[in-house]
């Protein structure tokens, strides 16, 4: 295995992405969208709902190949990518543990997952089926699946939507815990500014359709120092720079 330090960033340069509706009307979703995420950095794509964040992520995940432009994924270590979708997308006919192991490459299938399951509080739920889990727990299983693969880059698509604030907050802390254990280049899509300020090193602010980058907001402060006082300061300086973004 190569050292994790190989410095190839996540580089995105999408010239245009157009949807064609059933009636033949074409809608430009993305235009000249370019940004970069450095190696080992946690970045957020922040923008209002329906502004093409998920579209961007689908392109980067290789699920949508109908666009013009290019992107480069981080290399080094494994070249695997991992994703946490808006829905947990666990296979209902496999147990939590089988769901996690199935996502692993053959060479890692037998790997010890005790630590990961313990950290995420899933140790007692390994043999349950997804239908027996609450949404919060299913989301944790989806996180476990993503981190177990030891990816070179991790994509998260609003992984904490439709959870109550308390559960979402705990999941954010859990995400930080597992992420800090093995910092991976990560790109998370969110429309929640507070969440972005709490989690990321860099916030890429998007403008509505056709989506392009409005600006980049770097948060240089280590995460453990981001208490409520610091957070409100961050919020204020963010609003100062991007007065139109809520």
């Amino acid at each position, binding site marked *: 295995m190569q050292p994790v330090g190989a410095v190839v960033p996540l580089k995105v340069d999408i010239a245009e992405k157009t949807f064609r509706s059933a009636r033949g009307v074409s809608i430009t979703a993305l235009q000249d969208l370019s940004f970069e995420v450095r190696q080992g950095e946690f970045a957020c794509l922040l923008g209002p709902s329906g502004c093409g964040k998920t579209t961007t992520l689908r392109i980067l995940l290789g699920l949508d190949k109908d666009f013009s432009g290019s992107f480069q994924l981080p290399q080094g270590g494994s070249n695997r990518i991992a994703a946490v979708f808006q829905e947990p997308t666990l*296979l209902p006919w496999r147990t939590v543990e089988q769901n996690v192991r199935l996502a692993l490459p053959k060479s890692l299938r037998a790997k010890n997952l005790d630590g990961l399951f313990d950290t995420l509080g899933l140790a007692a739920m390994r043999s349950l089926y997804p239908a027996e*889990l609450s949404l919060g727990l299913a989301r944790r299983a989806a996180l476990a699946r993503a981190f177990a693969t030891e990816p070179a880059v991790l994509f998260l698509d609003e992984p904490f939507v439709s959870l109550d604030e*308390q559960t979402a907050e705990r999941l954010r802390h859990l995400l930080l815990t597992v992420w800090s254990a093995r910092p991976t280049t990560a790109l998370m899509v969110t429309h929640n500014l507070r969440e972005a300020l709490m989690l990321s090193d860099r916030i890429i602010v998007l403008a509505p359709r056709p989506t392009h980058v409005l600006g980049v907001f770097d948060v240089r402060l280590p995460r453990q120092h981001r208490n409520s006082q610091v957070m409100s300061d961050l919020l204020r300086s963010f609003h100062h720079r991007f007065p139109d973004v809520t």
Partner: protein
Amino acid sequence: MTASETDGTRDAPPSMSGRRSLATALAPALTVAVSLLGLCLLWNLAAGVWPSRAFPGPGQVWQVLLREAASGDLLYHLGVTLGRVAAAYIVAMIIGSVIGVLLGSYRRVDRFFNPWVILFLNIPALVVIVLGYIWFGLNEAAAIGAVAVNKIPNVVVTMREGARTLDPSYAEMATVYRFGRLDRIRHILLPQLQPHLAAASRSGIALIWKIVLVVELLGRSNGVGFQIHLYFQLFDVAAILAYTLAFVAVMLVIELLLVQPVERHATRWRRRPA
């Protein structure tokens, strides 16, 4: 870091005691037994009211059954027919499922081949059997092939419906995590198709064994169909019924001991109603 209290499991599966699970397993079988016994009584009554060689009672049929079983004929012919049913079933399910999933996944292919499916759906079983024997000779392959061809269009239609209900988000997850081809079939495709596979199997087995009998009657020298043809010429209704009921019993045992347990295993992940 520990598990939280607020988002615990919704309902942990209750640990079932051995006795209770045994009782719940036996209850359906008991109902079936009582129901069949009632039918036998009704039959006995009717045969008593109208005694005729063309309508023997259950006692007579039982005598013939014992005689045929003792001579070994019954077991031999049942085995031969069962083998043909199994072979035709496997061939029809595999070919039908592959074609059905392809048609369900690709709209254009479906549009082109849909008339073919309708055509084959409406060709009478007898025509396929006769043509099979004429073209390929009076042999085992022609017999099994003819039965399979009769069943394939039904499987295609059911599995095409199943493929249309596939959830693309699972396929996308599999793409992102780079599932291999076999893993995709085993963990993504088949579990989603399971209800449709079960439906196709259920209707398939019943249809197939009826067609196998015709195939045997027309061009084979063994099997339940051949025996029924023989006893038809001898006008031995008791023997005809004995063979028929014996085979129905075999199918019932297969349903209870094979189909239902397999189905229970395949749907173990569904949440039981509380």
